[in-house]
Structure formats: C-alpha cells, structure tokens
C-alpha cells in the first residue's frame, strides 16, 4: 500500500511538472533568446543569452508603455478588489443576518450574476451612455460587477459561522449597525477576505478580454494588452513577447505562492461549522 502511494505520488508530481513547470520553463528560455533563435519556437537552450537586453527592450517599447500598463492594472485591481470586499461583505452580511422578502430577490440577482453570461455589446452601450466607456473607472465597475456574485456567496457562507450572539452583545454594548459591521463582523472575516483579495486580484490583474472590449486604445492600456506590442499580423517577436508574458505573470504568481494557504483556509472555512 505504501509503495503504491509512493508511485502514485511520484507520477502525480511528474504529471503536474509536465503540465505546469514545462510551459513556464519554455517561456523563460524563449524570453532569453535572440529574435532569430526564438522564431524557431523550439524547446532548447538559447545560443546566446539575452535576458537583460530583452527585458530593457520590452520595458522601453512604445515610450515605456509597460510601466503605464502596470500602473493602470494595479489601480484597477486595488480599487476593484477594495470595492468587492466592502460590498461583498456587506451584502453577504445582510443576506445572512436580516431575513426579509427582499433577500429572495437579492439572492436571485446574485445567482443570475453567476449564471447569465455577460453580453459585451449592450454593456458597451450602457457604458457609453454613462460616459464611462474607455475609462479606468468604467473598467473598475465592470470588474466589480463581474466578481460580486462569487464574492457575496463566499462572504455569506462564512458569516453564517460567526455566532449571532456577537452581534447582539455589540447591540447591548451600544453599537450602531455600521459599527457592528465594521468593528465586530468585518475583522472576523479575515480568512475569507484574504481569499477574496488573492483570487480576485489575480483574476482582475490577469484579465485580458474585458480590458480588450471595454478599454480600447493606448491611453488606458493594461498589462495583458501590452502583449499585442510584439504580436502582429505578419510578424511576431517571440523573444520579446515571451519576456512580456514573463513580466506580467510574475506578480500574480508571487501573490499566489505567499497566500496559497490562506486561500484554501478561507474557501473551506464556511463549509463546515467549527
């Protein structure tokens, strides 16, 4: 039995190595190649290591567009995730703690947000009529809208594990509803808040399609869109493209590696009553 477990473990490790590590190694070595070398797209070591030169070139391309993109993506991610945590926790708290007829409606809306696929063109019409199309604030609202349903469900199930006595003790102590939420409930939501911050910030930072639809143009470019700098209809600079991929992949990867444990804790915390 033990031997079988060992073999199963080793083969699982090998499989995940092939699936997850090989592509990353491929990106890394291609990003270090010269332009001609990279064009062959082979899984081989570079004849000439050009990692630093490629890095400089990618950063400087189109008047330091990558740095602007980093700034924009970070801004969108930070603001959207802050709003998601705030609204997700508030709606989750209300759904869990205050039963009313409206809850069914709100719950229906939350589920609809998960099930109904987003329609791009009507969303653009709405954004245009509100004057939010092609703006960072419009993009932030889109990200909040897309992520809110999942966030509300996560918070709601977690809040169910916080004893109602705590709310009531705070009421007796003289706390107003907002004080109960911010001083008693929100601090206790830390595990699930970390989960939401990490999963949503990676999703928003890595988002390619939504900025492509709702944030066209060079002014408000986000990191994933900078990939188009090196990919054209007739020619693609694979070495620079892969260097760019490497640069936009690293920040979310670091976040994930560091918060990995908390994410799992937060995901399962609401599942079983402790």
């Amino acid at each position: 039995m033990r031997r079988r477990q060992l073999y199963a473990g080793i083969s699982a490790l090998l499989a995940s190595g092939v699936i997850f590590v090989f592509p990353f190694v491929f990106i890394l070595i291609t990003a270090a190649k010269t332009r001609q070398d990279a064009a062959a797209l082979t899984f081989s070591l570079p004849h000439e290591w050009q990692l630093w030169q490629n890095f400089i070139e990618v950063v400087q391309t189109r008047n330091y567009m990558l740095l602007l993109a980093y700034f924009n993506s970070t801004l969108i991610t930070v603001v959207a995730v802050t709003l998601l945590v705030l609204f997700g926790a508030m709606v989750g708290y209300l759904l869990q703690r205050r039963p009313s007829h409206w809850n069914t409606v709100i719950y229906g809306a939350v589920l609809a947000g998960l099930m109904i696929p987003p329609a791009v063109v009507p969303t653009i019409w709405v954004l245009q009529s509100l004057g939010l199309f092609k703006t960072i604030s419009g993009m932030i609202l889109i990200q909040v809208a897309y992520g809110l349903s999942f966030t509300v469900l996560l918070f709601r199930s977690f809040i169910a594990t916080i004893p109602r006595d705590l709310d009531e003790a705070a009421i007796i102590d003289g706390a107003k509803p907002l004080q109960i939420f911010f001083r008693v409930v929100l601090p206790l939501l830390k595990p699930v808040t970390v989960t939401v911050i990490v999963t949503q910030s990676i999703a928003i930072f890595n988002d390619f399609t939504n900025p492509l639809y709702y944030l066209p143009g060079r002014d408000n470019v986000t990191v994933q869109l900078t990939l188009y700098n090196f990919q054209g209809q007739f020619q693609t600079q694979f070495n620079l493209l892969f260097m760019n991929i490497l640069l936009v992949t690293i920040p979310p990867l670091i976040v994930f590696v560091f918060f990995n444990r908390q994410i799992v804790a937060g995901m399962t915390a609401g599942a079983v009553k402790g």
Partner: protein
Amino acid sequence: MTSVVLEDVRKSFGSLDVIKGVDLTIDAGEFCVFVGPSGCGKSTLLRIISGLEQSTSGRLLIGDRDVTHAEPSQRGIAMVFQSYALYPHLTVAENIGFGLSLARRPKAEIAEKVKQTADILQLSHLLDRKPKALSGGQRQRVAIGRAIIRNPQVFLFDEPLSNLDASLRSQMRLELTELHAKLGATMIYVTHDQVEAMTMADKIVVLNGGKIEQVGSPMTLYNKPATPFVAGFIGSPKMNLFDGELAAKEGCRTYGIRPEHILLSETEGKWRGSVRHIERLGADTIVFLEVPQLPAIIVRTDGDRPISPGQTLFATPLQGKEQRFG
C-alpha cells in the same frame, strides 16, 4: 438600584404564542431567577427585557421609565450570554472596554475603568490575552466584566453557567452571589437548572408554556408549590405526584410527596412495594419502589442504609409534608 416591571407582556412569532401575558414586578436590588423547562419562554422573556426582541403587546418599565420601545443600549441593562459572546479578535481589556470605546470615552478613562473592573473579577493578569487563550471560567468572568463596566441598572444573565463543568459551575454560583451582594444591582437570571435557581435567587419565577406558574422565594416554592408543575420542577429528585384513585382518596386531584419526606420501614407502612432500582449518591440513597396499582415511588434515604433490589419495603409519607392540589 432599579426595579423592573412587566405588564401583560405578550410575544408571538407568527401564529405561535410564545409569551402569553406575563405580569411581574422585580424589586430593586433583587436577584430574580426565571426557571422552567426548554421552550417555556424564559429566554424570550429575558430578550424582551433586554430589547433584543420586541414584545407583541404589553409594557415594560425599568425604574420609572417606560422602555417598551427603547433601544437596548438606552435601557440601562447589560447582558451576559450563554456562549459568553466575547469578541475573538479583541484582547480581554478591549472586550471589557468595548462599550466605552463605542461611546467614544477618553482612552485614559477606559483604561482606568477596565483596570477597576478587572480587579473586581481577578482578571488583571489576563488583560492582554485574546479570548481563545482563556479557560471557560475566565471567559465567563470577562463576559461579566463587560457587563459590570457599563454600570448598568439591571444585569441580565442568559444561562451563563451551562457551558461550564460541574465544579466550576458551583464556584461561579458562589462568585455571582457574592458579586450581587457587592454591587447590589438588580439581576435577572435565566436557567433551566433548578439547583442554580434555588441556591442563588431571592425570587424564583417558574415559567411553563409562556405563562408564569408561580413566583416566590426558593423555600416558598419548595414548601408551598402552587401547582403540580411547580411541585415537580422544584426539588431533586422530583416530587412523587399521583392522580386518580389515590388522589381521590386523599381528597384532591393531585397528591404529592417529596422523596425526602417518605419514611421507609421493613415491617409496616402505608404502601408496600418491592425495590426496583437503587442509586447510591454517597450522603443519600435514592430508592425506586414498585408499588402495585401506583407509579414507581422515589424515596430519598440515608446513604449507608443496607437495601438491595427486590427487597420488600413499606413507605409512609411524613404527616404535614404532603401536598394536595385541586
């Protein structure tokens, strides 16, 4: 010191009437215990007094003030919960001072009052700990501290000792009684444990099915129970209660006699029966006597009395200790 008056208080959840009209006066400085079986409405009544639940009708006065519709924090009450309800992310000091910090009192004043409260409850060395690093008894003391610091007119306790083990419970009973003597505040205490009710209360309110069965001092309820329910609820083991032919012979609808008020004899007595089961408690022995045509009679007798199962014994109720209802 403040009195609490309930006037025809009723509470319904939908079509279910939980409190069916309660009139009660709790005098200033009194230790009043609400006691009754599960689902009798005692906790609901306490929550109505605290303001966490609104009564459907009736009036509630704390002192001279009508607080029927007042916010919980405006009623001058403090409450200790069964689960302690300590804020897990705050230290003991922050837990105790939470109410004052909500009221935006100066930090120095909060620290001073927290220190005084902690001294009363012997918590001074634990002020920097989080609740998860405390034992059950210490947590209970922090919960009481959180109540004391607000200097309330009325303390409300919702089964505060039911999560503690037996020895700690008896220690906390003593501490709470001493605290009541020290503070002199009006205290209302909910429990389903009649030992807590008997040992701590100045006044016991026995509730059953959303109504008051009887109000009185512990010994009044023990010696002169108004109804068979009270007779059966107060006292352990519970009073032997008989309906039917035996009661009719005694000239009442229900006849009752406490286990400690029955004499056992090997030779003669009122009821002849055989011993079905014996519980040796050390100081006492509880005997379950099987008597023909009657339910089993429970008798409390001396701890070292030699009795064995199957033995034939005679039981005789003590004159003057019998209870006749209806």
